[in-house]
């Protein structure tokens, strides 16, 4: 599979989740394991630009596909805009949920741009979504943060939605 633009080939147990493949076999420990059950979002990665919980899926299912992890977002030392915003607005404390939050935010901004509705969108047929704070909170609620960095996360994403 292609991870962050690099072709990776590992031979692993078919029971290995995509998350464990990244963390234990490819040395990409940026994606985190918080629950291993699809309940926390810490393991969020992007597959062809869409956010998924990498703990809930087997690595073998991604042969030949393009996976982007937190390690693949920055350009060298130049942080991705979402990463910059998280630092500026203190959108994290311990940092453990953060890679998942950031990957999730990157995909979420794209979803909103594409007009995808959420549970709190008033007009489901509208072509454009305005990312109000309520929309941001709703769309980021699949990513738990026990440190309670939510106010900073919302501020960070709002700063990008407004830009």
């Amino acid at each position, binding site marked *: 599979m292609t991870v962050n633009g690099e072709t990776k080939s590992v031979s692993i147990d078919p029971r290995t989740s995509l998350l464990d493949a990244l963390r234990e076999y490819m040395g990409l420990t940026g994606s985190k394991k918080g629950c291993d059950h699809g309940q926390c979002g810490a393991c969020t990665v992007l597959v062809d630009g869409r956010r998924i919980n990498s703990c809930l899926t087997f690595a073998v299912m991604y042969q030949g596909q393009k996976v982007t992890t937190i390690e693949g977002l920055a350009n060298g030392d130049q942080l991705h805009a979402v990463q910059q915003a998280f630092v500026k607005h203190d959108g994290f404390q311990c940092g453990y949920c953060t890679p998942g939050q950031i990957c999730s935010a990157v995909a979420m901004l794209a979803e909103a741009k594409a007009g995808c509705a959420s549970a709190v969108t008033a007009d489901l047929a509208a072509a454009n979504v305005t990312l109000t704070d309520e929309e941001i909170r709703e769309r980021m609620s699949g990513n738990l943060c026990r440190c*309670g960095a939510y106010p900073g996360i919302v501020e960070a994403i709002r700063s990008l939605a407004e830009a």
Partner: protein
Amino acid sequence: MSIIETTKLGLVGKGLDRLDGPFKVMGKARYSAEFPAKKITYAVGVGADIANGKIRSINTAGAEAAPGVIAVITHKNRPPLVDGKTFAGGGAQGELRMPLADNVINHAGQYIAVVVAESLECATYAAHLIKAVYIEEDPVVVFDDKRAQRYPAKQWFGEAVTKNRGEAQTALLASAVSVDNKYRTPTQSHNPMETHATMAVWEGDKLTVYDATQGLYNTRKALALSFSVPESNVRVVCKYIGGAFGCKGAMWPHVLLTTLAARAVNRPVKLVLTRAQMFTNVGHRAETEQRVALGATADGAIQAIIHHGTSHTAVDGEFVEVFTKATPMMYASPNLSVSQDLVKLNKQMPTFMRAPGETPGMFALESAMDELSSAVKIDPVDLRLINYAKRDPDSGHPFSSKSLIQCYKLGAEKIGWNKRSATPGSRKEGDWLLGLGMASATYPTVHFNSMCNGLLKADGTFLFTSSTHEMGTGTCTVMSQIGAGRLGVPVELVTFELGDTDLPMAPISGGSATVGSAVDGAAVEIQNALSKQLSESPLSPFSGVPQEKIVVSGGKFTVVGKSETLSYVDALKLLKLPSLEVKYQTHFNDKAKSFSMHSFGAHFVEVKVDQDLGTVRVTRVVSVMANGRIANEKTCRSQVHGGVIMGIGMALEEATLFDSRSGRVVNRSLGEYYVSVNADIPPIEVHFIAETDKEINSIGAKGIGEIGITGVAAAVANAVYNATGKRIRHLPITADKLFV
């Protein structure tokens, strides 16, 4: 912004971005499960299905025969371990029992085996093949079970739990107005996002352990003891902790199991707890049942405070959740009685969880204050002002600083307290009932001794080192700021390194204690060492000038009447020193004997409650904190946010539920133990009242990690009462309790 207005004295440090922020957002920060090791193996712990009884037999044949399995360890073949000590007993262990010591089972989930295999998949699969047969006894997991052993809690960390002033019961009966009610808080689980993880690597009798811990030195000492090796042979490393909140303070059995397994298989072993194990194997906050009675005169002056109650402990050890800790200090009252009982249950040993004691205690006390305010018909803020304690009523000592009045006033102004109606249920918006509530917050300032080394390098940069911990508190950022502040140099020149027992000793990161004073002290040592040499060395322009006449200001050494000014690097060069290294150790602050040292604050909360469904939404929070000097406005604000958010979770959602028949935790996942999600959290305004506190420590700072959660649940419950007229005294405040 109010924060800036009150900072003329420089009491609020710059909201500097976290220095380790870029590492964290790029996924480069290495947590304990993420260190590489050659020939690594994976361990999985197997937990007991029963909560009380014995293992009759355990069949490991299937697991041993499974592909990839290297070893299966149970109580039958466990290599010897020297007994350790509990945290409260001066050691590190969360519980006294050594893992796999025998066939006795005291709580569900207690380890009965550990499987080591070539891969995580193999170990996980094999763990399921282990079959134990038990001799089961009915577990005792509820307070009112007749079989439960109950006894008075006497002492906790050397402090008497029972306290009395005057004649509380007599004064209560004689009071014009009184309230007397029971409050209950459930067992709660810390659930940091990073589950506990340990990797042990033996090289001969040298041991390196990567462990998610808030207590590196404690862990090292405990491992050295249990494995009979000198402490100098053991290195414990923890560079980043993915949240802790107290559950990584003590050392839990998996650390011993991992280390033991690594020695047994003679290869590195990594063990990462599952989320389910986070509910049964790393402690929890004890359940409490509390009676609070308050008696007052008709004009609101409190005459009697009674705070009695019960919390649980494990059947084989003692942990006291001291919910009465703040009560004797909080309000002026001539008569007071506090005491606690313990009840032994078949649950794992409880442990410290964010603001242990104060969190459940302030829920009860501050709810009772709200009830008294209704009974005596005095506004809740006014009632607190009437009973304001100017000196600590418990010790009789003055407070080193206390700005609680300002907290009440600013909070009331910011939330719009004057909009609150004293009559519950009288504000409505469509289907929603609106309410406002408030509560006080407090947490003591804790001192532990610590060490820090300081190094001035030839290029003019500084390095401070201490083996403290980064668990989201922004430690390296704040410590760099403190060092730079004392030295008078830009923070860019200062680095702080932590997280390794190869560095100077730091205490457990708990009780909101930090190593700030040690860093400050090391910075002063650098200045003193250079001044001394500048005064003595013939190479120096200040040669012969008495040391005390050499002033350091703005990062420069000067002497009145002399034109030369020397920077740190100039001084090094002149003195022909390649670098300068100092060591510093803090000492117990004697002033703690004559001053009462606490942080104070106030939370103001607005809620709406659906009148048909009973859904509670917190819609606004204003928290005002008086915490001495605020070292970094940004990270401190985030700490308060985190406390408030955990407090909202405690108020509305969190409870670790035990099945009364099996004694097992029913909701062992993040899908069933609810913590606040982003959509649950409204805007939270945090304000700091800057305080100058000359007594507390050299930097004038108080801890901020815990106070944020104290009082929040009461403020929410009080707001719910204001919205609905229903007083919920049993957390969490769920819809069934509101509208059934």
